[in-house]
């Protein structure tokens, strides 16, 4: 009896240690949960955006209130949205990390169709739609082209690794990158390969097609300008210190390339010469946007920075206070910014920087009035 009673404290200690270990490991396990980095699309007076809470919403551009929302239907643990949506013929298309490509009625959010892509492999890039087709890359390494109207598969193209890049369509050609290190150009009509351009790293960015060239960065820390017709190299920029993840933006014969080394590089579009860098204190994953003759860029350090397009001077910043990983969307003097605190914010660009118009917190399911939790 005495043995049993004296053994109890030891058991209690052991159980306490075991429970502590269980709690620690359980906390660690949450790290593998996809968060999403929602990119917005603005059409008319509505913002269309996937949220970090497993749904897709239409938000009123004026006041940030929800117009409609559509919950993802795939595997609950994988309900996240990463890529930007596409608008085509009255439908909004977006890919879910749950492996489903959704087509929703733009007006009311009703599901036009939803297709599990491949073997239900996750979708990270956004879709592109044109010429009766909706295209999306999948983590199973295929680019799929569906009939935009009813979701029937029209063709697919296999690459060597996951496709996390949003395709870009121009002049009947679809351009996209793959984590197999290549940039591809395919015929939109039938998916026939026109050319492929090899790099030495994975590619997640959406190609920027501008003035007959394809601009794209790679995990090899090189930013490339490729001839859109032939797939030959026009120039390359080698001075970055980390991967290129997000898509570039263009304006005034300048290319603005965001890098995970914390810089957005302003490059001469003809020569690739570095004009100026915009530096931040965290990796820049999302693409920058051009608004009112200024460049706006969001960084993982939680700030949105605005600079003059011409010389990168007059830096103004707005502290969102939470990691920004999604691309910034510009629309008529407004910036739509998504942050890791589940917020989608509309910022009005002013001479002194930016002024917050509204903030929509998807986890609170309501807009926060201006001034209540103002970031800038």
């Amino acid at each position, binding site marked *: 009896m005495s*043995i049993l009673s*004296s*053994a109890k404290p*030891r*058991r209690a200690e*052991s*159980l306490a240690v*075991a429970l502590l*270990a*269980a709690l620690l*490991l*359980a906390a*660690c*396990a949450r*790290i*593998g*949960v*996809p*968060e999403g*980095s929602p990119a917005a699309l603005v059409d008319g007076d509505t913002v269309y955006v996937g949220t970090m809470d497993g749904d897709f919403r239409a938000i009123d551009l004026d006041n940030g209130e929800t117009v409609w929302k559509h919950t993802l239907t795939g595997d609950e643990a994988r309900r996240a949205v*990463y890529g930007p949506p596409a608008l085509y013929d009255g439908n909004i298309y977006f890919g879910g990390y749950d492996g489903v490509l959704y087509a929703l009625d733009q007006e009311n959010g009703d599901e036009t169709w939803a297709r599990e892509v491949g073997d239900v492999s996750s979708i*990270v890039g956004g879709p592109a739609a044109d010429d009766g087709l909706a295209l999306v890359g999948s983590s199973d390494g295929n680019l799929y082209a569906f009939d935009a109207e009813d979701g029937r598969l029209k063709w697919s193209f296999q690459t060597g*690794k*996951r496709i*996390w890049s949003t395709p870009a369509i121009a002049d009947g050609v679809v351009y996209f990158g793959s*984590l197999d*290190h290549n940039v591809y150009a395919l015929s939109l009509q039938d998916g026939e390969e026109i050319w492929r351009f090899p790099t*030495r*790293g*994975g590619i*997640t960015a959406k190609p920027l097609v501008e003035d007959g060239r394809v601009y794209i960065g790679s*995990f*090899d*820390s090189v930013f490339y300008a490729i001839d859109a017709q032939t797939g030959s190299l026009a120039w390359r920029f080698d001075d970055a*210190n*980390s*991967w290129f*993840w997000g898509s570039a933006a263009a304006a005034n014969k300048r290319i603005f390339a965001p890098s*995970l080394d914390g810089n957005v590089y302003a490059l001469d579009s003809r020569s690739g010469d570095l004009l100026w860098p915009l530096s931040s204190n965290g*990796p820049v*994953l999302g693409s920058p946007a051009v608004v009112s003759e200024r460049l706006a860029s969001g960084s993982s350090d939680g700030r949105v920075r605005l600079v003059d397009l011409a010389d990168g001077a007059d830096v103004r910043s707005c502290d969102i206070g939470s990691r920004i*990983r999604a691309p910034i969307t510009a629309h008529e003097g407004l910036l739509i910014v998504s942050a890791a605190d589940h917020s989608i914010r509309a910022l009005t660009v002013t001479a002194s920087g930016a002024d917050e118009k509204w903030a929509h917190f998807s986890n609170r399911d309501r807009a926060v009035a201006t001034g209540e939790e103002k970031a800038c």
Partner: protein
Amino acid sequence: MEILSEIWNSVIIRPMINSLVLLYSIFFSNFGIAIIIFTVIVRAAMIPLSIRQSRSMKAMTAVQPKMKALQERYKNDRQKLSQETMKLYRENGINPIGCLGPLVLQMPIFLGLFWALRGTLPSTPERLADLSRHLYPWLPMVNEAVPLNGQFLWLDLAEFSSSYPMPLSLVLPILVGVSMFVMQKMTTMPSTTPQQESTNRMMLWLMPGMFGVFTLSFEAGLALYWIVSNVVGIVIQGFVTGWQPLIDLPKSIINLGRPSTTPAVEGQAEPSDEAEPAREADTDENDRDDGQDRRRGNRNRPKGARRRAPGRRNRRR
């Protein structure tokens, strides 16, 4: 705190992640092989520490009977007890926290491995982007290798173990649990008291069971690391302290759930009555092995064989 985090990343995490990716590049772009080789290298590098820890624990165990006697004698004089205890340690060349030193040194390495593996096998896009912070920009080979191909046997090492259909999803948890059980069986020191025996018995089942369940919530790559680490640990332990626990394993499993038949090391509290027959049965075998065991420094003895049979000293006289 930020400085500590930077030191931790620079000294432990980044070298480990870059080594793993480098091994992946060298060994056929197979991350399963990279994990196995890396785990073996790390465990092998820590053999001196493991041996030291093992010996330290053994020495501590050996003086437990004397410790208990001291505790009895000086139960009302804590200061004297403390002095005598230190004296006992000195006489036997024991550093009372000597067994903790190697453990403390190993902990950052194991924790680092845990984080490095999770960081190298990003299961979500944000974690893949985070990986860029850890790769050396001056080592193009590692940046070009990303993202790693996680396919190994039937596994995608970046996928959660629970994501496989039944019964495949149970394979890794079972392998983790079984390998950890055997590992614990190999490393558990002989109990000095019935309480300790009871605790050991509980932990023997609790830890493997818990880690088996955890495996379902983690990437398959981490499960592979746990399995390889346990297997390497078993082999190292086998060479250091002998294979007898492994040989006795089937018998131990059959006996589990019954009251303990393994009394504490000599000089401990009297075991229960049920223990006597087993102890008697062990005696002859112990007698036969005794000379050999002394030459081997008791290293290869099974747990029960380390005891001296009651009355044996009298018989020799």
